[in-house]
């Protein structure tokens, strides 16, 4: 029998789990033991609860290495809005499609290229389709490529700046140093993660299973510093742990969050000391503050969040695609209808639902033909689940390795 893609990924998951934990079994066993012990002390007070990650790479590690299978029953690991492509409203993709058909060269990252728009523009439902229909859409790996290419042809061009704080410092550098040629404008759709973290946890507080601990994004924290999460820990009274991307890092973060809960603490702690400090990169923070203004921004599937987005500041408005092309911002009522019918990305992006509970998951919506935004980006929760599966096989191997 020829193995299907999903079965292959299941096998890979087992191999990964075995490789990592068999060779590091003592440490893994110790951590899983702590997690179980702490959870037992907490379950009478908390019942079922969630630990939430906010980064596609953490979700990848959790899913790829089957870490969910190592958790005690009642402790759920869920993904929060850690994928900027997933939370960018369709309106802005449609605006880019329109520019593309008006003859403006559109520069985009590869995952945004495939992102389906809710409404078709000139027959195109994504930038990929627009390219096929004659629009000049070019995939780049970063703004440096767009700058070099736009300089070479001199035509009107726009760079779709989608990302979190991590890309903002690079864009700020380009704006402040005047690196963008006159013909290239930046459409800043940068989003800020702390407001989304606050909003998501508050929405889920009303659910049966609330978020009691957070695994904070490691690379965002290199720029913002761990201090960015202090308001989250203070306001919500839950531990926030900044951690790295190895499976052991993630297990340590979960154990640390539970330890704090047992001690009735709610602190920000850094496990990822090899890249993250408390203050973060002060120069990068300064550049971001100078080049951008903070705005209330719309998150696809979530709605408007105060102080959660970056648009170019007045001083650099000559580089702003919104101003140059008169791109309208979206009206609040727009957010009600921002996803395709049947798609559960709105619930999945905040960790309220699992991809496997979506009626479209792996039926109509697959990595090769995505319907919802969470299936498009490599970092989208659905795309990660589709590639690495959560099919119960990891449970069996964990039992076999005596990790549970």
């Amino acid at each position, binding site marked *: 029998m020829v193995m299907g893609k999903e079965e292959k990924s299941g096998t*890979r998951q087992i*191999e*990964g789990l075995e*490789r*990592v934990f*068999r*060779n*590091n079994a003592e440490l893994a066993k110790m951590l899983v033991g702590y997690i179980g012990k702490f959870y037992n002390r907490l379950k009478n007070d908390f019942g079922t609860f969630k630990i939430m990650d906010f*980064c*596609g*790479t953490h979700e990848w590690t959790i899913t790829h290495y089957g870490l969910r299978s190592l958790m005690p029953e009642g402790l759920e690991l869920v993904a929060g809005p*850690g*994928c*900027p*492509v997933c939370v960018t409203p369709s309106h802005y993709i449609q605006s880019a499609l329109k520019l593309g058909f008006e003859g403006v060269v559109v520069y985009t*990252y590869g995952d945004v290229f495939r992102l389906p728009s809710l409404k078709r523009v000139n027959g195109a439902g994504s930038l990929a389709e627009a390219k096929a229909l004659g629009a000049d859409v070019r995939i*780049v*790996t*970063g*703004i*440096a*490529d767009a700058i*070099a290419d736009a300089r070479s042809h001199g035509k009107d061009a726009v760079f779709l700046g*989608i*990302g*979190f704080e*991590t*890309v*903002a*410092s*690079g864009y*700020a*550098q*380009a704006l402040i*140093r005047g*690196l963008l040629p006159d013909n290239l404008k930046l459409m800043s759709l940068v989003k800020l993660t702390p407001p989304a973290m606050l909003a998501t946890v508050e929405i889920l507080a009303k659910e049966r299973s609330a978020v009691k601990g957070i695994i904070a*994004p*490691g*690379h*965002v924290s*290199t*720029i913002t510093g761990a201090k960015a999460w202090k308001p989250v820990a203070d306001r919500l009274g839950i531990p926030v742990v900044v951690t790295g991307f*190895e499976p*052991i890092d993630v297990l340590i973060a979960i154990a640390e969050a539970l330890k704090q809960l047992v001690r009735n603490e709610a602190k920000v702690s850094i496990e990822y000391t*090899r*890249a993250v400090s408390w203050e973060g*990169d002060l*120069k*990068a923070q300064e*550049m971001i503050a100078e080049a951008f203004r903070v705005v209330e921004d719309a998150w696809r599937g979530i709605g408007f969040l105060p102080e959660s987005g970056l648009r170019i500041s007045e001083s650099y408005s000559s580089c702003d695609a919104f101003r140059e092309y008169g791109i309208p911002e979206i009206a609040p009522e727009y957010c009600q209808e921002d996803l395709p019918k049947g798609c559960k990305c709105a619930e999945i992006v905040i960790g309220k639902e699992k991809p496997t509970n979506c009626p479209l998951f792996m039926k109509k919506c697959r990595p090769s033909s995505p319907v919802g935004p969470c299936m498009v*980006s*490599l*970092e989208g929760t659905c795309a990660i689940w589709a590639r690495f599966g959560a099919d119960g096989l990891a449970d069996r191997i964990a039992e076999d390795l005596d990790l549970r």
Partner: protein
Amino acid sequence: MCWGVPAVVKEIEGEFAEIDYGDGVPRRVIVGIAEERLKKGDLVIVHAGVVITKLSYEDASKTAEMLRDIAATAGEASELLEHYKRILRLSKDLEAEG
């Protein structure tokens, strides 16, 4: 979008850096941190075409050591180890060149 890939700085040209992910292909990226912090041979994390942080040689070596520990057989984990080995070696070579 917090996918970050370790790389080595080959050249610094103002706000741009030429980096190598260990595959020998030079790529131009923008520096999102204070560029005076960077020099040829430095190890960095690159995210979506932006240098977002510097890694110390010791820390990157520690990660490689950890990967070596867990990667007994060939596969993805050891691919990652190979990646680390290549950039660590390249970093040393570039530093020796000066």
